[in-house]
């Protein structure tokens, strides 16, 4: 058995054991301690989760809620990362762009998306735009920073080599800086997609009619802990899948970054 297969098998077995142990502890807590007064057991939650997926929560099924959240996340994330990567690369490569935009960026970056809720309502109203704006901000901050770091850390020897080989400044940007920054950009996208997905709950608290954030909010309003937990589990599963897809995309795009023959 080769090392990679062995490593994957060990990881899979450990994952099953740790998740199993967590569920067992949860089940034990809800059957033998006072935890049962605070939350339902995992069997109830998972059977309700299936019911919510085939039945309805509010006006539609949990799957439709998830798809609505996913749509918002993907639009916000794509816009945020597109603007973030472009700005980050420019700031990383060109001193003037960095001098102009970096002070504003450094001011905006630490502000959590949730702090923007009142302003986003004033600017965009209670509709979809305000929600997408919050997700945009979450994706933007992470992707900008990583794209800038990636563009700034390109080996100067490679830049000099390409210049010697006749590359002009625009060509250096497109054929050297952008590809060299790809691993760093992907690191930003990984964090960005997680932040965007995490922000969807906050975004859907702005007078939403659907979405996983709404499901949790509605569960809280109705004191329905099962619905809250079902929403949380769905967020976790989709977040995990998004991170996995991103990791696979990175493996394909950055296969050159792996050592060994």
């Amino acid at each position, binding site marked *: 058995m080769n090392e990679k297969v062995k490593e994957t098998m060990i990881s899979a077995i450990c994952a099953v054991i740790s998740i199993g142990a967590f569920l067992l502890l949860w089940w034990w807590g809800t059957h033998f301690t006072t935890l049962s007064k605070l939350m339902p057991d995992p069997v109830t939650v998972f059977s309700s989760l299936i019911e919510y997926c085939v039945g309805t929560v509010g006006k539609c099924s949990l799957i439709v809620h998830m798809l609505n959240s996913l749509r918002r996340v993907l639009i916000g994330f794509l816009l945020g990362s597109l603007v973030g990567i472009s700005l980050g690369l420019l700031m990383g490569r060109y001193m003037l762009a960095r001098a102009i935009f970096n002070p504003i960026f450094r001011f905006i970056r630490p502000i959590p998306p949730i702090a923007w809720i009142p302003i986003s309502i004033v600017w965009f109203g209670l509709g979809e735009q305000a929600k997408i704006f919050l997700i945009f901000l979450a994706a933007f901050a992470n992707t900008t920073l990583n794209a800038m770091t990636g563009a700034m850390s390109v080996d100067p*020897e*490679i830049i*000099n*080599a390409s210049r*010697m080989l006749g*590359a002009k400044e625009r060509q250096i940007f497109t054929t*050297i800086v952008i590809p*060299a920054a790809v691993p760093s950009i992907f690191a930003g996208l990984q964090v960005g997609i997680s932040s965007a997905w995490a922000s969807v709950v906050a975004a859907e608290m702005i007078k939403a009619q659907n979405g996983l954030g709404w499901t949790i909010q509605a569960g809280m309003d109705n004191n329905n802990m099962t619905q809250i937990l079902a929403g949380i589990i769905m967020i976790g599963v989709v977040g995990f899948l998004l991170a996995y897809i991103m990791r696979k995309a990175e493996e394909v795009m950055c296969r*050159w970054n792996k050592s*060994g023959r």
Partner: protein
Amino acid sequence: MSERVKVQVRNLTKKFGDLLVLNDVSFDVIEGDLLCVVGPTGCGKTTFLNSLVNIYDITSGEILLDGQKVNTKTQNIAYIFQGNSTMPWLTVEENVGFGLLYKPLSAAEKKERIEKYLEIVGLVKYRKYYPKQLSASMLQRVSIARAFATEPELLLMDEPYGQLDIELRFKLEDELVKLWQMTKTTVLFITHNIEEAVYLGNKIMILSNKPTTVKTTLINELPRPRDIADPQFIALRNQVTDLIKWW
């Protein structure tokens, strides 16, 4: 046959603040020369090469290539750096063809050149490999093939084998001589290794300690392939060593 001057360096001076690194350096490089430049470590050999190709602005003086001011965008100059300068996201063949992206050549001609130089440096089998999958000597061979593929008028090499072990160095030195003899490219080879300079160069230029000036240039007519144990080789090596001493 009359000798044609390829590079003219006139009164080249380079200062970093108050630190005088190159002091009124003047010399000519003849077309087709493999000129090895040796000098004490830290004497400004790399500064000299970087000044030549405008990586550094010179303080005063003049550097001409074919009678014109050096311009890397219009003149075909290649530079092989001390460290690894391959593009890690490109395969071996893409790296070799990288310099051709900016040259007005047909696709067929580019392909032909890539094949030719992959063959010469013995990397045909590894054409689809990425730099992270290669050894240090293979990486330097990629850089050498990439530089020669552009068929430069002038090739600058800055201690390209400085970080390699002795066996790899010998192998790559032979490869360089083979390529130089084939292409007749003018090569400026910077090194602090005296044996390497005597083994490679048809001329050896000796620089002084900082502030750097040209001490002398020796003609090296030892027959090729050269034998480092040959008494004539040892005699020339000792002569260069004596000239380089600044203490």
